[in-house]
């Protein structure tokens, strides 16, 4: 049996390899998706004070550190048994919306636009953001500018763009400065124009991608996402909803503290990424998806006018419950628009400039859970502490993990449809990578396990000098 490997899977966040096995007729017999990085956060945070957790867990991911800080701070709020002051809650929502904008802009413009605009079969050496800069500098500038808009708002609030220390248990550590508010409001029209341009370009290209839409994950799954009472998305503080592929509610209004009754985690032998499943159905049948596509399937409406206009068109094209994983891109662009609208709404709330932004307390509960929507989907932090506040146990269920089973399935479907071993072309493999990109996975987020030593490797410097003997896992 012949094996094709995509190693590394490029233009994604994280380390992965895909192995594709072909039978004697050149047809795909099997695919394997290996996430190849492991880190160990859940274990090595044991013993650390709970209030360090937002800072440590931010380092799970450089793209969505804000998501980890927020989920972590919410778990810490629960341990302190406090509700942050109203201005702090608004500011947390604001920084979260800014992160959605920068993260979704990165996914679309920097990572996936090269496939969508230059073509899946285009020259791999140019199929990247630099190729977009050469080919369509207006679009590249719009994308870079939109990402900057989100990052600058984060920096304005939190003093740094990546791994800031501003989100703290009990709230945030400084109020919004009026000049940051003014500057952000002034930047909204350009940000909005960039999001509109992305949507226009994407919708204009949809016709070209009928085959990808049909075969990038057409299998029905459940969907999960957070909404408020009205069924609108609430990325910061919604309750968890599960819907069937038919659109029927499978489980509604689940609070963070009840997650363990609904989400189980399975270990898989060939990847460091665990596979969460819907517990009432069980493993492996309880497959569900999270992230932009799932959120749009779970919600009734965005609750902001421009995003809702686009949502009506999206649903007119593809229905109320959209199944193709290719359309993660489309859903992501709608959320980008909603994020910009949300930023404007929040900045226009008078209470956003409130000076009281932090509740102070020490340990008042020995367990806390925090749940939010990260850009890639539902994120859960769960800590148990002792009375001194030292973390004794930690569980993290990270957005991309929820999609593990569905992604595995979809990779198989894409490979079987597009790869012909008798007439092999690079673009066939790129479509498999592109399926993974559609999910916008955050694979370094999704693996927090650690290694098992039983092989010894010699670490040598480049001139051959022995540095250290190191035990290796398996």
């Amino acid at each position, binding site marked *: 049996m012949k094996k094709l490997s*995509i*190693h590394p899977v490029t233009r994604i966040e*994280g*380390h992965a390899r895909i192995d594709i096995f072909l039978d004697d007729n050149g047809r795909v017999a099997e695919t394997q998706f*290996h996430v*190849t*990085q*492991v*880190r*160990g956060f*859940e*274990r*090595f945070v044991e013993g650390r004070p709970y209030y360090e957790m937002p800072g*440590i867990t931010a*380092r799970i*991911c*450089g*793209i969505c*550190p804000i998501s980890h800080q927020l989920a972590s701070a919410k778990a810490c709020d629960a341990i302190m048994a406090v509700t942050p002051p109203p201005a702090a809650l608004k500011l947390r929502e604001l920084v979260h919306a800014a992160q959605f904008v920068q993260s979704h802009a990165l996914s679309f413009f*920097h*990572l996936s636009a090269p496939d969508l605009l230059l073509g899946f079969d285009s020259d*791999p050496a140019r199929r*990247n*953001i*630099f190729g977009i*800069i050469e080919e369509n*500098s207006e679009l590249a*500038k719009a994308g*870079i*500018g939109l990402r*900057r808009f989100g990052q600058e708002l984060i920096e304005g609030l939190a003093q740094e*763009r990546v*791994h800031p220390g501003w989100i703290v248990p009990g709230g945030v550590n400084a109020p919004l400065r009026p000049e940051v508010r003014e500057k952000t409001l002034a930047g909204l029209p350009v940000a909005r124009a960039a999001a509109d341009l992305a949507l226009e370009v994407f919708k204009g290209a949809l016709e070209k991608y009928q085959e990808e839409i049909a075969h990038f994950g057409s299998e029905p799954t459940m969907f999960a996402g957070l909404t408020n009472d009205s069924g609108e998305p609430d990325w910061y503080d919604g309750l968890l909803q599960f819907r069937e592929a038919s659109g029927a509610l499978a489980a509604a209004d689940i609070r963070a503290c009840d997650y363990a009754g609904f989400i*189980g*985690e*399975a*270990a898989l*032998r*060939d*990847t*460091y990424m*665990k596979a969460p499943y819907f517990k009432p159905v069980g*493993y*492996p049948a309880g497959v569900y998806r999270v992230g932009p596509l799932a959120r749009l399937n779970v919600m009734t409406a965005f609750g902001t006018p421009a995003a809702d206009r686009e949502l009506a068109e999206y649903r007119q094209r593809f229905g109320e419950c959209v199944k193709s994983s290719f359309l993660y891109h489309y859903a992501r662009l709608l959320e980008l628009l909603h994020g910009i609208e949300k930023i404007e709404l929040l900045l226009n709330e008078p209470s956003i400039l409130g000076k009281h932004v932090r509740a102070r307390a020490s340990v008042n509960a020995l367990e806390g859970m925090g749940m939010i929507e990260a850009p890639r989907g539902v994120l859960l932090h769960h800590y148990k502490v002792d009375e001194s506040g030292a973390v004794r146990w930690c*569980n993290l269920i990270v957005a991309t993990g929820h999609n593990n089973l569905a992604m595995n399935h979809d990779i198989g479907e894409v490979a079987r449809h597009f790869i012909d071993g008798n007439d092999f072309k690079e673009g066939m493999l790129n479509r498999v990578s592109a399926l993974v990109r559609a999910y916008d996975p955050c694979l*370094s987020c999704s693996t927090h*396990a*650690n290694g*098992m*030593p039983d092989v010894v*490797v010699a*670490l*040598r*410097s*480049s001139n051959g000098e022995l*540095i*250290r003997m*190191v035990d290796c*896992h*398996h």
Partner: protein
Amino acid sequence: MRKVRLATAWLDGCSGCHMSMLDVDEALIEIAKRVEVVYGPLVDAQEFPKGVDVALVEGAVSSQDDLDLIHTIRQRSKIVVALGDCAVTGNVAAMRNPHPARKLLERIYVEGAQANRGVPNAGVPALLRQAVPVQEVVKVDLHVPGCPPPARGIAYVLGELVEGRIPDLGCKVKFG
């Protein structure tokens, strides 16, 4: 003028250093005029190419994949830059080092799973027992600390390297 062949690599890190690199914003367009990115998470190369002028390496050396890649990077690159605290000191990647690895794995994949319990053992790279900084494995030409290093620091480093100078970092970067 020949473009400088730039590679970026991501070992055991969080991508924050790469994000800080993108945080140069529109300067990326100017940089692209003088630099060709021939390998890294932003481009599609499957193999680390020969004849790289500058390699920016984020993350610590933590798995067999990392170890293989960093040796290849050293052999095929004129200048290797350790970008960010994980590459420079091990930082957060090395926080796992005091813990016995076998127990950790069982904690995650046996105790921490409710179905199909068991440690991954097929098709995943061996994990080194300790995550080590890049300089413990290969010679590093330049260390750029920070978690992450600030975008303006990365832009300065790239600008100098493109001009064929080794940058004097002075007080332009700091740890953490």
